[in-house]
């Protein structure tokens, strides 16, 4: 089925979310809608799916104008949508979820479970989804839940499938599987609208790319277009994360982690004998496919998780005198703190700054003002309170200073944090953590969900902290970020450090290491060239 949008416009008040958008999706085509968060991709699809009424323009299916007043109409017309947040009932089985709303019923209105299972089995077999109709949805991994959503859409005879940021919730392996599914669906004649902001995925799977920015179609491109071309269309300027200057000094070791082990309550190993050091004035970036223990490593270092073995040591140095800068060594270690198993509060007050991975969940309080968020983990310090009483003036002046210094775009420092954009919220978190006197700065995914402009700013601040002699540990799944910031790159796989390599290590070598191949072997494999191409393609994710 061919889908055409003509001059579709959607306004919210006087904000134009979609401005005269033209879009043609041919039958059996994967059409990527590429754009940054907030560009208007999801709004457009919600218009198409009948969730929003368009303020102008028309929708044509096979050249026939159609009008949807709700998702039911859209579904009946053959449009299926898989939302970013799944619409599944966790306590129902796959089969029950798939037929929900169109349940096949037998005599007396009883649910025909057999038929429901048949539907699931048929679609699952046809496309090789490998989904058990009797499994409880709540027990399934996210990637499989997504397939259930797709089965649900297909069981309603969807000819056009809208996937709204389908890979946002997936780990890379699942992403690859999803891509395969998309190709199969395409082969069977289903048209797919693939909404994303990830360039690699677009290049890998799309037939045509339409770039949307600020509610307008900026242009279209073929998947062969270079990443930098696509990125510059998306954000409106050439994005070059580039390579920051590397550190030049040899600082003493600040963070020393020895044989760190961590297991969860079920006894699964999350960290396995991890040892490393981070020196003053150095950025160590921990790279790896998400879910290989990096998050847990950061959380263990900060005290949110109690390690099951090993030790975490923090070395404090006296300020370096010019004359003894030449013979750096043990004599400069003034104190060593053992942070193993200490509380978060203790770790933070030892001069450790922490930017958590999930900003909205762990980093900020949305209902608090910017000023309050800027002191969230420091209210007990002498700067902001005395004898349990807050120093309101000090909190306000701190906020005024940091809002200015970190270029937080807000009406005032008393504005509620929830009214800020993701990038500005992250600047608040980074400002809070970096505004203290730190020996160690730990940032987990410091620029996740942040616009390009803010990424640039946050990166420059991190580098600035490094140049001031702070030891920096970055956990990131973005290789661009890793190679831009790191002085050394540690690659994690399955709770272990596979190796620590220089930041200019070739990307596919890093990719192999992320799949668990040791550095030497990865270099050797890379040297052999084409023989291991398949492995590389899989691992480079």
């Amino acid at each position, binding site marked *: 089925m061919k889908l055409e949008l003509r001059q579709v416009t959607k306004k919210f008040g006087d904000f134009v979310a979609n401005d005269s958008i033209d879009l043609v999706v041919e039958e059996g085509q994967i059409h990527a809608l590429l754009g940054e968060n907030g560009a208007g991709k999801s709004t457009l699809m919600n218009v198409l799916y009948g969730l929003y009424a368009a303020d102008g323009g028309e929708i044509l299916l096979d050249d026939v104008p159609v009008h949807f007043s709700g998702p039911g109409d859209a579904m009946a017309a053959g449009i299926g949508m898989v939302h970013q947040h799944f619409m599944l009932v966790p306590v129902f089985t796959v089969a029950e979820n798939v037929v929900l709303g169109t349940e096949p019923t037998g005599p007396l209105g009883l649910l025909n479970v057999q038929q429901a299972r048949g539907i699931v089995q048929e679609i699952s077999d046809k496309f090789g989804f490998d989904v058990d109709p009797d499994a409880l949805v709540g027990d399934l991994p996210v990637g499989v839940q997504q397939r259930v959503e797709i089965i649900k859409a297909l069981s309603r005879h969807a000819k056009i499938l809208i996937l709204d940021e389908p890979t946002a919730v997936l780990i890379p392996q699942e992403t690859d599987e999803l891509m395969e599914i998309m190709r199969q669906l395409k082969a069977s004649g289903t048209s797919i609208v693939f909404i994303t902001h990830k360039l690699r995925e677009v290049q890998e799977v799309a037939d045509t790319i339409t770039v949307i920015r600020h509610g307008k*179609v900026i*242009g279209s491109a073929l998947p062969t277009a270079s990443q930098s*071309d696509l990125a510059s269309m998306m954000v409106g300027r050439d994005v070059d994360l580039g390579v920051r200057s590397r550190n030049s000094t040899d600082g003493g070791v600040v963070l020393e982690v020895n044989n760190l082990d961590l297991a969860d309550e079920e006894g699964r190993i999350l960290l396995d004998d991890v040892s490393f050091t981070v020196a003053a004035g150095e950025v160590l970036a921990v790279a790896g496919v998400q879910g290989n223990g990096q998050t847990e490593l950061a959380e263990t270092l900060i005290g949110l998780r109690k390690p099951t073995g090993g030790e975490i040591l923090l070395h404090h140095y006296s300020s370096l005198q010019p004359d003894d800068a030449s013979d750096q060594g043990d004599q400069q270690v003034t104190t060593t703190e053992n942070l193993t198993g200490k509380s978060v509060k203790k770790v933070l007050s030892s001069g450790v700054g922490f930017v958590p991975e999930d900003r909205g969940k762990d980093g900020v309080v949305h209902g608090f003002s910017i000023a309050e968020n800027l002191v969230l*983990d420091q209210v007990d310090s002498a700067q902001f309170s005395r004898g*349990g009483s807050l120093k309101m003036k000090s909190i306000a002046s701190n906020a005024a200073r940091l809002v200015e210094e970190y270029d937080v*775009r807000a009406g005032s420092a008393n504005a509620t944090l929830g*009214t800020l954009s*993701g*990038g500005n919220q992250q600047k608040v978190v980074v400002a809070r953590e970096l505004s203290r006197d730190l020996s160690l700065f730990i940032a987990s995914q410091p620029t996740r969900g942040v616009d*390009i402009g803010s990424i640039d700013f946050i990166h420059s601040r991190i580098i600035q902290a490094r140049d001031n002699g702070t030891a920096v540990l970055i956990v990131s799944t973005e290789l661009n970020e890793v190679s831009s910031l790191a002085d050394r790159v540690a690659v994690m796989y399955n709770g272990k450090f596979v190796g620590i390599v220089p930041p200019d290590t070739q990307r596919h070598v890093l990719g192999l290491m992320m799949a668990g191949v040791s550095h030497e072997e990865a270099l050797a494999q890379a040297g052999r060239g084409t023989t291991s191409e398949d492995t590389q393609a899989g691992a480079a994710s």
Partner: protein
Amino acid sequence: MTNLLEAPVDERPTRNWGQTWTKVASSSALTSFLAIVVALLIGAILIAAADSGVQQAGHYLFARPGDFFSALGKSIGGAYSALFEGAIFNSRQLFMPLTKTIAYSVPLIFAGLALGMGFRAGLFNIGAQGQIILGATLCGYLGFGVNLPGGLHLIVCLLGAFIGGALWGFIPGILKAKTGANEVIVTIMLNSVAVFLLGWLLTLKAFQIPGSSNPVSPKMNPTARFPHIIGNIDLGFLLALLAAVAVWWMMERSTLGFRIRAVGENPDAGRTAGMNVAMSYVWVMIIGGGLAGLAATSQLLSDPSQQLNINVAATLGFDAITVALLGRSKPLGTIFAGLLFGGLRAGGYIMQAKTGTPIDIILVLQSVIVLLIAAPPLVRAIFRLPDPERQRQAHVRAMNRALKKQSAGKPPTPPEGELAEEVDLPESKEVSS
């Protein structure tokens, strides 16, 4: 720019009762006011419907509609003016009824402050009833069973009330902190435990009037009682106001309150910021329990006739939930809500006596108020008010525009920040290779 619109405010599903109640409890002041208006209107309909004069005139409504409407006006006007005279002012007693209202409001303010504090911490403490009973038990025993000089005796009784309530708050607090036990369930259960505990204590000789086996305590020693200030107002009201100021200070100006509010809004962020989430729950329950316990003092120390009996807490603990909700969990709001409910109660008795309007109407008023506050969209629909979420977005948009203008004024190569993206780019660009 549009990123601002994506600010994920309140879009996460509420995760537990506590958060739901936190949200309900923070609805707008306008909603509270309109809820009261609607409740009075519904009350008016019920008053008229229950009035025999109106019913009779209704029989010949079409023959003489004037009769019906005058009966209508008479019944509603009569009831509400009796309510007013009983709660605020009448020509005979002048402002004496107002002092009665204030006296009734004291325990509601204490317990309302306690619950409001819990709501803001994300805890749905509905154990005020039990906490009041425990406070009353300790306060009462110290009031009649101990001989101390005046002043000191009162302080000891106040401390007893606070400690009794705090103990009863500590139990669910520590259980939640250590085992994750749901505070709603634990406090409900402890309410029952408190009732039976007091019931059993009242069977003991130590708690009974000498020579009697009735489950009623002796009267309080005069040394333990609140000094009267004016009319029915005694020191208890001043203490309640003082408690409101203290709670305000604690929540808004102390590090403890900062932590409590942070944990109430987002426990994960609190934990990551190094706060001891479990301990802040415990503190909220201890302080809240103590405040609820103080509500018992006006049941025992205000009037010479008061005694410790099984009904000492009446339904105060549950009315206080309404008071806290209506007061939006803020101290000032709680004072006004407490006064309103105190007035309804004081006026309700007079209304029943003078016009025969059943006092149950007051319960209806209270219930409708809660219902409407719990469902702000209903109030908005009735009064065709704009949705605050939309207003917020409009505000964000206005701010965006202002910022855009600001940045447009800057040179064409501004520094970092998403505003920079706006600058000098071709509107459309074809890339293919």
